[in-house]
């Protein structure tokens, strides 16, 4: 077990996989000489040479297509889209080719491609560079979409993605790169499609992925300390396949759920999660499933507006309190442990 950042876990895992399997190679904009916009690929060009670490032109569709071809012919490309926003330029390659080739052509070729890309706002990058559009990919059969929230999962899910024979969109998050955590030393890939109960509890199920899974854990810990609330946190980890069984099992126990997402509310990931809970745990719900998401606006550039648009901890706490109130836990906040009165 080693404590390291999410960024370091990604870097070390990429390097380990390139050492382990010479078919693994990297492509993307600025990943070589510049060592990556977020320095995930630092030092790799020097170590592995430009045959395995390819700087590409600013041409997402081009290098995505090249990677798909390479994958079909037996290599295991890991490409970096500088942010998920730029992956829209490669939507046709990813959705119409990577996701469909195995199914459309009778299984003649698989596409073991990994598309690494960070989403997320909060960095004042403006409306076109701050989106959370992982939904576009999670929507498409033939794709897999994973979204680690911790350094340990960054490693375990990246190992799993590289070794998977299907195209995997690997969602990173700008706000998570500098977070730290324990990372197991063992070579232990995660199982794609498995959510994780990161904190067991009985009062309510709080569901998130990527940055919002991180927020969920923090809020649950803080409400446990301040209010004695016993909140269960589920980190989705994988958006496609979606681990409905774990969600349903949790809500059967807690009878209430709040879903957190950094994307927009309408038609968002949370809608699918809420529908899955309604489908699988209808008879166990004591209150409607509530969602917390970003404001339905193009992300503002101005810092105060950007902060207001993103889901905050207070938004999450408010949704939790409303949901608990709806199941009859109306008591006002108990006095804090230090005895401060209301």
């Amino acid at each position, binding site marked *: 077990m080693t404590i390291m950042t999410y960024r370091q876990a990604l870097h070390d895992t990429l390097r380990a996989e390139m050492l382990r399997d010479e078919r693994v190679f990297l492509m993307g904009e600025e990943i070589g000489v510049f060592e990556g916009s977020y320095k995930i690929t630092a030092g790799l060009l020097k170590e592995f040479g430009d045959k395995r670490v390819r700087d590409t032109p600013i041409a997402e569709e081009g290098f995505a297509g090249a990677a798909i071809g390479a994958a079909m012919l037996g290599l295991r490309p890991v490409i970096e889209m500088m942010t998920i926003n730029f992956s829209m330029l490669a939507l046709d390659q990813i959705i119409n080719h990577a996701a469909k080739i195995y199914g459309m052509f009778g299984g003649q070729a698989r596409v073991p491609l990994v598309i690494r890309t960070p989403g997320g706002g909060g960095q004042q990058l403006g409306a076109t560079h701050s989106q959370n559009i992982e939904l576009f990919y999670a929507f498409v059969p033939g794709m897999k979409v994973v979204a680690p929230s911790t350094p340990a999962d960054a490693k375990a899910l990246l190992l799993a993605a590289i070794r998977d024979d299907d195209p995997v969109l690997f969602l990173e998050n700008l706000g998570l790169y500098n977070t730290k955590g324990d990372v197991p030393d063992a070579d232990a890939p995660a199982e794609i499609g498995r959510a994780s109960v990161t904190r067991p509890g009985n009062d309510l199920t709080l569901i998130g992925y990527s940055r919002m899974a991180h927020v969920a854990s923090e809020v649950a810990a803080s409400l446990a300390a301040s209010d004695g609330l016993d909140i269960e946190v589920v980190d989705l980890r994988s958006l496609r396949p979606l681990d409905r069984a774990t969600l349903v099992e949790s809500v059967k126990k807690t009878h209430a759920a709040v879903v957190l997402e950094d994307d927009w509310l309408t038609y968002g990931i949370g809608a699918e999660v809420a529908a899955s809970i309604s489908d699988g745990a209808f*008879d166990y719900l004591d209150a409607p499933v509530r969602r917390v998401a970003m404001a339905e606006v193009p992300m503002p550039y101005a810092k105060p507006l950007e902060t207001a648009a993103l889901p905050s901890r207070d938004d999450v706490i408010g949704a939790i309190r409303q949901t608990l109130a709806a199941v009859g*836990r*109306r*008591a*006002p906040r108990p006095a804090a*442990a230090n005895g401060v009165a*209301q």
Partner: protein
Amino acid sequence: MPRLSDTMEEGAINTWHKHPGDTVAAGEVLVEIETDKAVMEYEAYQDGVLAEILVQEGENADIGAPIALLDDGSGGPAAPASPRAESTERTAAPPEPSAPAAAQIPAATVAGPSAPVPAAETVNGGSRQLASPLVRKLARENHLDLSHVTGSGPGGRIIRADINGLLATAPSAAAQSPSVSSVSSVPSVYSSASVPAAPAVAAVPAVTPGAAAEADETRGTRGVPMSQVRRVIARRLAASAREIPHFYVTAVADAQDLMDLRVALNDQLTPAGRAKVSVNDLLIRACALALREHPDVNVSYGGDSSGVLLVHDRINVGVAVAAESGLIVPVIRDADTKTVSQLGAEARKLVSLAAERKLTPAQTSGGTFTISNLGMYGVEHFTALINPPESAILAVGATTREPAVVGDTLAPRYRLRYTLSVDHRVIDGALAAKFLKTLTSLIEHPWMIVA
């Protein structure tokens, strides 16, 4: 009538801040309600116009009973059949959430078996009764009749918390394990005891029915309406005495060192500009430490049908306070994690809030143990009634100098007597004795209290 505290079963309207025809904005104070614990302001939860007041100042209403009607001020169709309880019956139907012109003040809780609503009655013309999916499933499985239940969820939805009482009496209720996650959600067997709702307090005492009405001249008797607080004390303590098999264990401690320690502490605290500590502050901490050593005492009986002992991981010590309005027990949460000075400061604040009747429900609920100290009145010792759903209460007498045998001689020493009242359903004599032994040892070696 909203539920404003865990033990509240009915409330009295103290003051209406709005009058019929007044515009009301969400968040504005609508009414002051007197509960069993305090007078609390209740705010409107949505905009509208106060159409009608159903419960006048000074009158009582059960939880869930409409106390007023809000509408949109359009003067449109009158509120659906003014549900004012002309008889003592109450309407079983939840407010119709889609009716735009008349939103009732939200209802709160189970009508319970004591509300004699005819089973066949569907008050609002057969419209769908709102209940959460969980409630519907539990009702199916346990053959519950939800038509008698008033929902306390949003829009009058029946939620799990509303049917706890019904589930406890349902034949297959054993399958439902009670929530043990939070002290405050511990179901009080007392608050759910089906004590018939008392008739509304009459404005003129002389017409109060019942025993007082037999006011006879031979005794020169007159009836005086009891306050909400007094009535709750009466009901809860009668239930405690009736339902809890109490037994009592008394001990005496040599409190000389405790008194010396207190003097020594205060000699240091006072020049430092800090508040003095009292014997009671030291006793609160001593009890909290003894509870930590004997967690089996920090429990609640889960009820005859539950088969569950509720074990509390947090040690929340209530301190009985003789407020002007009557006995009230504010609770110091997590008393075992606080210093004597912190406990003293918190106790002082709670006592002064109690005197002003400003304690919040959170400050008077969630206790796991109570201390009642009548030492300041000079009583030698006494026994106290358990404050449900707790399982023990310590009654503390005065600390007095009296002759004591020290070695082979008699010497004047401070001595302190106290009696633990215990719920024999969950605590046996030996455990009570061990708890007292620990407590006595702490009092006689008081540095261990502050260690």
